[in-house]
């Protein structure tokens, strides 16, 4: 086995065990998503280590969990789509306390054409980086595209699917730096395309961050230094 093969084998085991944190772990996850051979190596390690699960004692979950799972995965009307189900799932999944808020969810459609039209009408906006945010619940499902222009500090957010807002939660955007540190950019609106002005303090980080994350945060903790609520989407940043 070559040294390169050894490294690949180590990385597959590292991904299975989740030994790396932050961008390094995300990079291995992205590689597994793109490289079937590497994904198979990771799965092989999952299988090798799986007997350890036997050592974990089962714990009976509360009876209330199943009804929430059932509601979050319930069939949707024919005129709805998978995206609606996803957001309803997240509204439910974020916490059991939010279950009562589901009846109040409102769904809006974000037309991707809006993104193109908006950018076309903003000649000063010259994005140099872009990130497609993929659902944490379904890595194949994009939920929004983010573009950033470091010259102006303008950040453009374009939801790509129907979304719903759970009550008392702020949809919050974060950047993760190469050193693993996480920084709050601000609250975004999941229901429409929008432009934000990134604060001067955040602009250098927004320009360099390799990873962006969206989480659902409690409304009463607007200045939390790191995500407290569930992460609902992540995306790697590409330079244009």
């Amino acid at each position, binding site marked *: 086995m070559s040294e390169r093969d050894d490294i690949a084998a180590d990385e597959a085991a590292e991904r299975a065990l989740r030994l790396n944190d932050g961008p390094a772990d995300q990079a291995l996850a992205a590689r597994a998503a793109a490289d079937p051979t590497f994904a198979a190596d990771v799965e092989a390690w999952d299988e090798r280590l799986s007997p350890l699960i036997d050592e974990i004692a089962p714990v009976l979950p*509360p009876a209330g969990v199943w009804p929430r799972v059932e509601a979050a995965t319930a069939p949707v009307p024919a005129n709805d789509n998978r995206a609606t189900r996803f957001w309803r799932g997240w509204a439910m999944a974020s916490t059991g306390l939010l279950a009562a808020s589901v009846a109040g969810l409102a769904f809006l459609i974000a037309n991707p054409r809006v993104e193109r039209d908006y950018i076309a009408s903003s000649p000063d906006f010259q994005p140099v980086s872009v990130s497609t945010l993929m659902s944490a619940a379904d890595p194949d499902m994009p939920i929004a595209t983010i573009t950033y222009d470091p010259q102006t500090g303008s950040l453009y957010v374009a939801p790509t699917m129907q979304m719903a807002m759970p009550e008392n939660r702020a949809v919050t955007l974060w950047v993760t730096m190469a050193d693993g540190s996480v920084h709050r950019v601000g609250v975004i609106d999941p229901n429409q395309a929008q432009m934000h002005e990134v604060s001067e303090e955040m602009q250098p980080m927004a320009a360099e961050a390799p990873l962006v994350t969206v989480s659902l945060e409690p409304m009463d903790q607007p200045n939390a230094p790191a995500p407290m609520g569930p992460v609902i989407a992540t995306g790697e940043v590409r330079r244009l």
Partner: protein
Amino acid sequence: MVDSLTRDDLAQALTATGRGDRTAFRRVYDATSAKLFGVAVRILKDRQLAEDVLQDVYVTVWNRASTYDPARAAPTTWLATIARNRSIDRLRSMASRPTGRPLDEAAEVRDETPDAAARLEARQEAGRLHDCLQVLDERAREAIRSAFFEGDTYETLAERAGVPLGTLKSWIRRGFQKLKGCLER
């Protein structure tokens, strides 16, 4: 109540779930939720957080069951990997380690009913892994076990062991090679 399913039954129920069979989905939940909740409680050490993660796990199972291939993974491995990864995702999304119900206390509420998922694991395989882990250097063995059960990273393990990160990585990587070699013999 934990339903009793053989490994093949569980694989079939998971496959049927992927076709949208909600009765099969409920069977999967009944047969495995106690084990997967145990995984989440073990890693997160907080029952409320573990409940949230468990719900997320089964929403993910519902959405991804169509991709499950019985020829590639045992159903328990596939499910436990989702539960473990989701728990670690949640753990690392938090600013600091939760200080909820400690592990020993959580264990007091363990389900004492027969655990179908555990029975489904091949005892021989479990014994083999155990034997091969014993072949490893103790430091590598404990680090690998700690990473698996607690979701610890290289950095955390190095800090705890009081050794440089590179040293810790060398221990574990040598452990991987020995473990793989032993399991393939």
